[in-house]
């Protein structure tokens, strides 16, 4: 076996062009998949951290019963290495400057916030800054509107209960400024240690204690497992994933990254398959020679298997050596975009898919043609034998396709994605078969001549098998790339459509029924008309079909909606962005029934006709479910789990009205006049939250674009690999054509034309297949609507034609620069 050992030299392998291509394909495969996985994992962490800052922590525990939680609970969290922080929220009247004002106080401990930053100003005209801690003891930060309402200045005193505190800053934005109903009045932030001395909190006061937790996901989870049995109904455990505003955007971004990763896996497999097949072809003479020298089929099998393992190791190591620096670069770019340092975390688990991709590409795609080498007859040494017909390769192809889509499934965990891509691919192959037939029939008639066009078309016809397989690979590559481009575009459009410039950024809550018209009139006059106004009744869902709801629903389900009062409403018509998915919206005269939000209905296992009982104050009402509808939680408009018909069970119960509207920054002062005229109406300012969402969308967009660029680069490499697979033949042909008197310009023109036709066809097929895949993906995964994308259907074939003809020109280079004689000798 010494001969075998000698034949196993990586250095010797490296001298072979095809081996270099296989290795490059492997390195790119591992590098792309690893970079995407690492970056996706990093982005996930960053996004969760960003989104966590909406809670100012990873998790929050709210105690709505006005009592602090037992100290042991916090000690348990400490013992599990979780960071903790506390805050107390309550409403009270404050006195200062010009008068009294009802405010919403948030008293925070030193640790607040565990995640995110507080945005403050040291004076009305000072620059905004981000800080990591709340006010010091003895100081308060107040909402700028309160400063104007009370005609205060920085440094003035503000009386909170019995305590006088110094106004030391303006609170612009708090990281957890969500839609908490207690946070309606202007905000005052103070230190927790000052709370007792104010004397505001008495037995029975309406106070909310909120506890913040942050740390490793696993610790948080195990802590919750510990905590869960101890929680009372008034305790609510909140995580990022429960936050309705964000979860959807996050989910889509994650899916996009997974899609990108999956496409990278497929592209890598294509590249490895093309290059290794080429390698196997070029090895046939060597194998025949080895057989002549006495090596048997098994020995040859072993020889090439060992070689494959060696390549695998080289590819993995090489790929990781590329991926890790690239990942660092991307992660630090992310830091720049976010304008704050990102805690770079190299997740070892994220490397697994990359290594698995290398293994699967090698053994499902590279191994079969190389394995068949052992069947090469020794006779080949003496006389060239017919090559394989390709028919033997079919079963292998099937295995390979199953393997690779299995890998995608494993990687993305989405059957829908796998099926969409497979469907697109099937369509592509079908059209290709049709095209192949058309090509043969149409081009058969064309006769050659000195004209570049005719020469190009004759070339296409004569190399029809090679041309078709090249079109197949190009089209597949373009399909994958185009799918990603299309999904990206529609994803971004959806986001932009969700949060247009003039998305409502203020809520008006607690509008008394008799002032509804006046309030609407006020904003009408300001030129900022209100969106739809909805009545709101607070009530709890207590029974389901006569059974207490907590017993009717499985204990495993943590359903926040059951733990707190729900906002109930009645409405005559379905809001524009809601959609009925089961049952029917209330007919005009109908006064019974309730329409339930789809996700809640699913979690509660509700179906049409189930009777829901709500407890509202001391009253109980029971209504059957008559429709189930989806709600756009991130629409920044009032949204309701439960809607009743006008004149139905809710009418007559004490209600207040709620609405939202858009107020541009320059008109914010109008809020002062409004608050004076309607002191009981609460204004919820969410313009900062919207800004934050837009910022996150922007950062995800950048990441998506970076990944898109990576994938497109990978696609380009696949195409280069395919083109260079026929390099030798094409160069020989070029050299011969020149020897036989073909002029350089003719050669260049006909080659470029031939490739342009190839590229154009491939581009068109790829785009059509991509449309099909996107059509499927759009419905299942991204919940968007589908329309034809003319903006890619036209340019992609054109671009691919141009790129490929340039590739063609590039591979002709040696043919043009060297004397034909030298070239023929070299290629012999």
């Amino acid at each position, binding site marked *: 076996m010494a001969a075998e050992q000698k034949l196993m030299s990586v250095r010797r392998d490296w001298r072979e062009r095809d081996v270099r291509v296989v290795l490059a394909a492997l390195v790119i495969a591992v590098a792309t998949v690893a970079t995407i996985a690492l970056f996706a994992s990093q982005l996930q962490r960053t996004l969760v951290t960003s989104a966590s800052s909406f809670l100012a922590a990873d998790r929050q525990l709210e105690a709505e019963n006005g009592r602090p939680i037992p100290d042991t609970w916090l000690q348990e969290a400490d013992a599990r290495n979780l960071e903790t922080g506390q805050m107390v929220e309550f409403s009270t009247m404050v006195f200062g400057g010009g008068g009294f004002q009802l405010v919403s106080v948030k008293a925070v401990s030193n640790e607040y916030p565990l995640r995110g930053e507080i945005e403050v100003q040291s004076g009305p005209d000072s620059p905004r800054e981000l800080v990591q801690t709340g006010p010091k003891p003895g100081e308060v930060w107040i909402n700028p509107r309160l400063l104007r309402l009370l005609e205060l200045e920085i440094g003035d005193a503000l009386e909170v209960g019995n305590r006088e505190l110094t106004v030391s800053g303006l609170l612009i934005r708090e990281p957890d400024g969500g839609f908490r109903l207690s946070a309606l009045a202007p905000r005052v932030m103070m230190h927790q240690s000052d709370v007792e001395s104010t004397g505001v909190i008495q037995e029975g006061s309406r106070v909310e204690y909120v506890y913040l937790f942050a740390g490793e996901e696993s610790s948080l989870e195990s802590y919750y497992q510990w905590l869960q049995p101890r929680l009372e109904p008034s305790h609510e455990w909140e995580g990022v994933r429960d936050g309705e505003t964000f979860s959807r955007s996050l989910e889509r971004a994650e899916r996009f990254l997974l899609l990108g990763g999956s496409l990278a896996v497929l592209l890598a497999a294509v590249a490895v398959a093309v290059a290794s097949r080429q390698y196997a072809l070029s090895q046939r003479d060597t194998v025949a020679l080895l057989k002549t020298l006495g090596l048997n089929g098994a020995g040859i099998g072993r020889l090439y298997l060992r070689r494959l393992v060696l390549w695998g190791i080289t590819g993995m190591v090489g790929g990781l050596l590329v991926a890790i620096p690239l990942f660092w670069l991307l992660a630090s770019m992310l830091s720049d975009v976010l304008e704050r340092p990102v805690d770079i975390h190299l997740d070892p688990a994220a490397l697994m898919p990359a290594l698995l991709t290398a293994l699967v590409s090698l053994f499902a795609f590279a191994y079969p043609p190389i394995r068949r080498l052992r069947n090469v007859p020794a006779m080949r040494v003496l006389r*060239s034998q017919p090559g394989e017909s390709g028919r033997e390769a079919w079963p292998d192809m099937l295995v390979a396709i199953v393997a690779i889509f299995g890998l995608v499934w494993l990687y993305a965990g989405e059957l829908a994605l796998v099926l969409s891509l497979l469907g697109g691919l099937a369509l592509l192959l079908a059209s290709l078969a049709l095209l192949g037939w058309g090509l043969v029939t149409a081009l058969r008639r064309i006769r050659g001549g*000195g004209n570049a066009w*005719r020469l190009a078309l004759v070339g296409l016809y004569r190399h029809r098998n090679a041309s078709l397989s090249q079109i197949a690979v190009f089209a597949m590559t373009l399909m994958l790339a185009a799918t990603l481009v299309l999904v990206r575009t529609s994803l971004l459009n959806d986001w932009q459509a969700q949060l247009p410039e003039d998305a409502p950024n203020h809520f008006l809550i607690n509008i008394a029924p008799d002032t509804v018209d006046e309030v609407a009139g006020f904003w009408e006059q300001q030129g900022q008309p209100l969106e739809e106004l909805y009545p709101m009744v607070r009530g709890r869902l207590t029974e389901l079909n006569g059974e207490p709801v907590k017993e009717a629903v499985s204990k495993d389900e943590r359903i926040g909606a059951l733990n707190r009062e729900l906002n109930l409403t009645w409405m005559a018509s379905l809001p524009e962005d809601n959609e009925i998915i089961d049952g029917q919206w209330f007919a005009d005269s109908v006064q019974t029934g309730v329409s339930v939000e789809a996700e809640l209905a699913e979690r509660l296992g509700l179906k049409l006709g189930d009777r829901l009982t709500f407890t509202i104050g001391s009253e109980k009402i029971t209504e059957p479910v008559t429709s189930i509808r989806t709600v756009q939680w991130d629409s920044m408009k009032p949204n309701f789990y439960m809607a009743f018909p006008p004149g139905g069970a809710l009418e007559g119960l004490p209600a207040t009205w709620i609405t939202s509207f858009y107020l541009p920054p320059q008109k914010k002062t109008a809020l002062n006049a409004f608050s004076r005229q309607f002191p009981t109406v609460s204004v919820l300012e969410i313009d900062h939250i919207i800004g934050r969402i837009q910022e996150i969308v922007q950062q995800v967009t950048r990441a998506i674009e970076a990944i898109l660029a990576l994938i497109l680069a990978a696609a380009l490499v696949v195409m280069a690999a395919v083109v260079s697979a026929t390099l030798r033949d094409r160069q*020989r042909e070029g050299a*011969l054509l020149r*020897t*036989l*008197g073909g002029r350089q*310009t003719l050669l260049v023109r006909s080659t470029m034309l031939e490739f342009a036709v190839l590229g154009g066809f491939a581009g068109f097929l790829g785009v059509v297949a991509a449309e099909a895949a996107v059509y499927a993906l759009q419905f299942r995964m991204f919940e968007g609507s589908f329309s034809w994308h003319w903006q890619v259907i036209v340019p992609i074939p054109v671009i691919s034609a141009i790129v490929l003809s340039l590739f063609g020109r590039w591979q002709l280079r040696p043919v043009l620069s060297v*004397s034909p004689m030298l070239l023929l000798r070299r290629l012999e």
Partner: protein
Amino acid sequence: MNQMTNPTAENQPPMLRAQDLTHRVRLETDTLTILQGVNLEINRGESVAIVGRSGSGKTTLLGLLAGLDTPTEGSVELDGATISQLGEDERARLRASRVGFVFQSFQLLPALTALENVMLPLELAGFEEPEKRARELLERVGLGERLTHTPRQLSGGEQQRVAIARAFASDPVVLFADEPTGNLDNRTGQAVSDLLMALNREQGTTLVMVTHDEHLAARCSRQFHIEAGQLTEPEALGEPVS
């Protein structure tokens, strides 16, 4: 001119003339001289064999005479045109219209059928009915039944016959052959050289052939020996050809 039949027309300029032909190749460390001061004249209709050992420079000389490469020094005239002064495209045009080639390793394009291989130079030269002419030639070389076969489906002798058909396809005035029987067994080689000579006679082509096959060389009207880049004509009593 293509139909020129008088092989020794004294009043016409020679078909090929090489003057002080020197060719050097630059290697990494020094320069290798492959041809040194070669002078040569070949008249119309002559058949010339250039004989020499491997590495003597005979194939290089053939390439320079055919305009596939340009010499470091000296000049080559082909049919009155100084090809060593022509640009690449002009030389290509000259090759397309007046030169044919036969190679030791056949140089057929593997993806193309026999017919398509023969059609290739006709298409490049812009012939009106390339297929008709190609068919005729393949029938002439005895491959009328193998038109749609690809080189892989043909034996070595058959492949070389396709190559010969291709070489004569565009009515060249001069045919260059590089070891045309080098890859073939004796009997096949004999048949191929018979065919080559016969076609050469029929078409009145000037034949320049590089070979180390003494028998084949003996069938040519003149023979040159090449050794270490120096050309001699034994028939001219060992003196360099002037």
